[in-house]
């Protein structure tokens, strides 16, 4: 009926009304994505996402929408990635135990060399030094040091990095005991490197 009526902006407003009441409504977000894609209404969507994240940065649907918009517009170029790392870091600092901002950060870095984005290691070490002990933070530190180890040719430095990564795993088994099964697996993979 939207196709017949051509009232795309009305549909967009409708989804906004629904999301105002229920910001995580799965069907509203799906419909919103369809309207935006079909009628190319990308302009202003990142601002819409930003508004929602400012109201509730734990809104996983909004983080997903951010990824959806960028993937379909600028895509994640090196410059965009640097920008998005800074953007996600802002919310990670606000709430280091929030899953969504970390999932977004890790998601956009998939397939990338963390070496090329030293600000990630910087963020993690900064939070660790402040005594923050979120499982997402320590999980990221494991990744950082695992990559440093694999990029290292010098055996003793390599071992130092591997030991750091393993120590974080041991710490995680204690502080995130519900996920011991997972952290033991990560530790076994490190030992096999």
């Amino acid at each position, binding site marked *: 009926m939207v196709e017949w009526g051509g009232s795309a902006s009305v549909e967009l407003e409708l989804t906004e009304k629904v999301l105002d009441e229920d910001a*995580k409504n*799965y069907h509203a*977000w*799906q419909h919103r*994505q369809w309207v935006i*894609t079909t009628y190319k209404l990308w302009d202003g969507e990142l601002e819409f996402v930003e508004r929602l994240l400012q109201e509730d940065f*734990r*809104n*996983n*649907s909004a983080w*997903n929408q951010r*990824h*959806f918009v960028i*993937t*379909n517009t600028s895509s994640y170029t090196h410059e965009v990635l640097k920008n998005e790392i800074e953007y996600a870091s802002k919310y990670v600092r606000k709430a280091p135990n*929030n*899953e*969504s901002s970390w*999932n*977004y950060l*890790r*998601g*956009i870095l*998939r397939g990338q060399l963390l070496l090329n984005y030293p600000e990630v290691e910087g963020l993690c070490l900064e939070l660790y030094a402040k005594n923050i002990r979120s499982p997402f933070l320590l999980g990221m530190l494991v990744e950082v040091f695992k990559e440093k180890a694999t990029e290292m040719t010098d055996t003793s430095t390599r071992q130092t990095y591997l030991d750091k990564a393993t120590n974080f795993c041991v710490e995680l088994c204690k502080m995130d*005991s*519900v*996920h*011991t*099964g*997972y952290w033991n*697996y990560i530790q076994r993979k490190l030992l096999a490197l």
Partner: protein
Amino acid sequence: MSGQEYCMTEFLRVSGVYWGLTAMDLMGQLHRMNKEEVLHFVEGCQHPCGGFGPTHQQDPHLLYTLSAIQILTLYDSLDVIDAEQVVKYIVSLQQEDGSFYGDHWGEVDTRFSFCSLACLALMGRLNAINVDKAVEFVLSCMNFDGGFGSVPGSESHAGQVYCCVGALAIAGALYHVDADQLGWWLAERQLPSGGLNGRPEKLPDVCYSWWVLSSLKMIGRIHWIDKEKLEHFIMASQDEETGGFSDRPGDWVDPFHTLFGLGGLSLLGNKQVKPVNPVFCMPQDVLDRIGLKVKLLDSV
């Protein structure tokens, strides 16, 4: 159930029958149900196009077609309906991009990919559709966090993850999944209460004990969940008076949450419940009887 409740649940009646019968069979009590009555009811739900509606005189849909085929398989009675026509119905709903419409109104959702592949696999007719294209569409719904949504771009959701992982398993295409990343996303569904939610920052619900746990089982990582804590949560959601399960402790019970609570307990190794197949959510002995084997990823 009151007359009003009976009318209000018309739109999903055959699925309700599947939930109830499967729960009974998992407890070894299927014999207490009236097989003839059920078969008569299910027969009457099939349309000339081959698809099944939720009850008599309601329009056909893939969701209800799967429930019907599951019930008939439980009762070893596929012959009471026109199975070939079911195959034709499902084939007619596959689109060029490999996705499936739920019915002729054209909604696309990975749930319908699962319904199609599961139905055809139960009938031994998987190759009637373009399986490669079906896999391609499911994979296009994989997200940056390793999870899957309903259509490309949709947020990862445990229910959709179950459907996508199940579809890939049936198609022999589980190797496409990043099992470590997805396994971690699934494991993160477990909250301090022990219960599982469906996506970040949402409340736990017993039905996710099924969608999350079966997905983890299919990718060989079920031990990434704290089993004791989850079992405790599921048990706490059982109502002592009625015996049914609700979405979370203290809420009203229903057959949907009862089946998925029992399914979750079965996957956790509870000996009071028969082994359940993680792909089809049916007793494993039923799948063994029809010789249907779906390979899962090895446990890590």
